[in-house]
Every structure is written in structure tokens, then in C-alpha cells.
């Protein structure tokens, strides 16, 4: 027997999934714009960003209605709480994709730097994290969620390495400072995207098991 709340939750899941796909597309356009040096791709990010913001409001409204009408408890309550948090993360991810597109637009007007290749690799990992986090949400897949958490360490390390290299570039050649700063901002925004994907993975684990592994719980050995 399907309960009324199941219908409402399915509707909510479908919207958040569409929102996740829009975020994935926005990140793809922003990062491919860098890799392919294509300003046209960057322009598409704005469209996705508008769509993400509309989903953000829709999800909030659906959650509010669901809480008011269905008074969810236990797994239902955890799922709605997770969705509210994922909604906020996805909205911020849309903003970060937008930031990246602006950083890349600035960067493309300057002389290319070889460090852009490292950032391309970092972007690849982050996009996989976003995709995996949303897939983990759809399938309530704890193993995939854990993989996202592990990938976050890779992204953090990539950001540190990129920063070091770009600082070296700036020290060596003053004319490259502006381009290096643009790439640092891209790198910083990618790292934040990874953090939000990690948050989503943590929320999936919470919704499925009730275990809160934020703030070091996962790395301190507390497995879901």
C-alpha cells in the first residue's frame, strides 16, 4: 500500500533530482568552458542557475507543505530533513558554478597557464562527486556515499597543490598574477563544490540510517 506521504515524497524526490541534474549541467558548462576555452559554454551557466533557483523555492515550498500536512516521523522525517539540507547545498552549488563561469570568463581574456590542466582534472573529480552524490541519493546507496566522502580528500589535496603551483607562478612572473588569481578562485570554488557534494552524501547516510557522520565522524572511523 502506498501512503499519501509516499506520493508527496516521490514528487519531492523528482524535483530535487531535476535540480541536481541542473547543477551537474551548470558545473559541466562552467568547467568545460575553461577546458575548451569556450565563452559560449560559460553563458549557459546563467540559464541553469536561474533554473536551480526556481527549483530551490519549489523544494522549500513542497517540504513546508509536506511537514504541515503529513507530520512526518522517523524515516520520512529524516528524508525530509535531508532534502531540505540537500536543497540548500544544491542552491549554493549553482552559485559556485556561476562563480566559476565568471572566474573563467576573466581568465580567458589573459594568457593561458599550464596549471589550467590540473584544474581540469580537479573539475573532473568534482563533477563525478556531484553525480555520485545525486545517484547515492536516488538509490539510497551508502557505499557510493562513502566513495564521495573519500573523493573529497582528493579534491582538497588537488586544491592545495594548485594553490602552491599558482603561488610559484605569481612569484616568478608578475604579469601572470591576474590569470593565476582567476585560476585560484576557480580552484577554490571547485573545492567548495566538493564540500557540498560531501554534505549531500552525509545527508544520504543520515536519511538512510539515522547516523550523523558530519564533523569528522566518518574520518574518525564512525562508519555508517
Amino acid at each position, binding site marked *: 500500500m502506498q501512503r499519501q506521504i509516499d506520493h508527496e515524497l516521490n514528487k519531492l524526490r523528482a524535483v530535487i533530482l531535476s535540480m541536481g541534474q541542473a547543477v551537474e549541467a551548470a558545473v559541466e558548462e562552467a568547467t568545460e568552458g575553461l577546458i575548451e576555452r569556450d565563452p559560449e559554454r560559460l553563458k549557459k551557466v546563467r540559464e541553469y542557475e536561474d533554473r536551480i533557483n526556481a527549483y530551490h523555492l519549489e523544494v522549500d515550498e513542497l517540504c513546508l507543505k509536506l511537514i504541515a500536512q503529513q507530520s*512526518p*516521523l522517523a524515516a520520512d522525517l529524516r528524508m525530509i530533513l535531508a532534502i531540505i539540507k540537500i536543497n540548500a547545498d544544491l542552491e549554493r552549488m549553482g552559485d559556485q558554478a556561476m562563480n566559476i563561469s565568471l572566474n573563467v570568463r576573466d581568465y580567458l581574456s589573459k594568457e593561458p597557464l599550464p596549471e589550467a590542466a590540473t584544474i581540469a582534472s580537479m573539475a573532473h573529480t568534482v563533477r563525478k562527486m556531484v553525480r555520485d552524490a545525486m545517484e547515492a541519493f536516488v538509490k539510497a546507496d551508502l557505499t557510493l556515499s562513502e566513495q564521495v566522502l573519500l573523493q573529497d580528500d582528493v579534491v582538497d589535496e588537488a586544491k592545495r597543490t594548485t594553490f602552491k603551483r599558482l603561488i610559484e607562478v605569481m612569484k616568478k612572473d608578475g604579469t601572470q598574477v591576474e590569470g593565476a588569481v582567476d585560476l585560484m578562485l576557480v580552484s577554490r570554488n571547485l573545492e567548495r563544490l566538493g564540500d557540498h557534494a560531501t554534505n549531500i552524501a552525509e545527508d544520504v547516510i543520515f536519511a538512510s540510517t539515522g547516523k550523523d557522520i558530519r564533523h569528522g565522524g566518518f574520518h574518525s572511523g564512525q562508519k555508517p
Partner: protein
Amino acid sequence: MMTPSPVLLEVNGLKAFVESTEILHGIDLGVSRQEVVAFIGPSGCGKSTFLRCLNRLHEETPGGRAEGRVTLEGQDLYASGTDPVQIRRRIGMVFQKPNPFPSMSIFENVASGLRLNRIAKGVELEARVEAALREAALWNEVKDKLDASGMSLSGGQQQRLCIARALAVKPPVLLMDEPTSALDPVSTAKIEELVIQLKKETTILMVTHNMQQAARISDRTAFFLYGDLVEYGPTTKVFTTPSDRRTEEYITGRFG
């Protein structure tokens, strides 16, 4: 002075029968002082019977009997020679449907237990009645019509009158069997607020079918199913991350 034991009421291996049918299959459960415990579960799961065993009301049901051990402040309530009437003075009860004594005034409804048990008379009786009505958050609404019939009050007021009647003899434990199921939301909110106030003095065990009510006002929740206690724990835990799959299924409306 000795510190009172944190466990006020202790139940071990409690079984309840009607004729040869076993309704409760050996319940173990402890209740601390100043706690509100909610009892939830589908109809017929034994939660009301459990409550009625605590003040030995179940044995008044034709064919009803109980086995096991129930202690209140260390005293075995089922020990031979224990007077059930005296137990009911210490473990008060409020029922689903408000049941003021129809022939009595508001004052007499509350005074009846005090008179019957020869606890108070005269000025002291009046003071105890007023105190009980104040505790039940009813005094301001009835102080000018204490001689009116208890039946002249609204449903919610009648239920608070019954609570005042139960509180008048200062029971350490109050049992409430779906006390708000016949009341409108405003009266329900008043009773819930009252329960939270009362727990400073009185330990409350409440049967409810309203999950949100249990979540709102209880400290611990017990889930009964087919005469077994499936889960008993802090209310927040039970309603957010229950340990047992059956609890999860029941409170999310997948059965029951």
C-alpha cells in the same frame, strides 16, 4: 534524608489475561520520577490493559487477572493483602471520555476522593479542592460556579475536572488513557500543556493514538504490539531513529 529512587514504578514479567486469553506476554518496564511516558501501538495491542494492570483495574474486568510484579516506590502492588482501592489513591486514572460524577457539583467532584479517604475536611478540604482545580488549570474558569453540576462544563473542562479529581489525593502516578481523543484541538492543547506542568510533581503514563501528541509531550515512549513491548526509549530517539523495524513501520503509518 534518603534520596528517592529514580525508578518510581517498576514492572517485571507482567502478564494479563481475560479468561484463558493472554493479552500481555510478560512486560518489563521501569518509569522514573517526573517523567511523562507515552504508550503507543495499534488498537488491541494491550497498551490500555497494561495501564489498567498498574492500578489493578484490569482485575475488575470480568475474567481479568494479571501475573507478574509491579512495584511502586518499592511496594509490590500485587502482594497478597494489598488493597486495590488504596493503590488507586496513589495511581490515579483519567479516561478517554470525561466522566464527572453526574449528580455532583464541580466542588464535590473534586472533594469526593478526599472525603472518601478521610484526607481532609472543612477549610482544609476547600483549600485542597482549590489547589487541585488550580493544578488542573480549571480554577479561573469555575471558581464562581463551584456549586454547578460538573456536567454543565464543556468536554475539555470536564476532562480537566476529572484530572483535578484525580490530583486532589496527590497521587505520585497518574494514568491517562487517551485523555484527549474526545476533545477539540484547543482543549487538547490545554491538557497537553497541563501534562507538561504536572510532571514536576506527578509521573504520568499516557496512552495515545496521536503520534504527534506523544512526540510533543512525552519523555519516553513505549511501543506495544500484539501484547509485547517492542521498543521503549527516549521519545526523540523513537520518533526519529527507532531501533525496531516494526516501530518504524507503525509510526510512519505503514501498518496499524
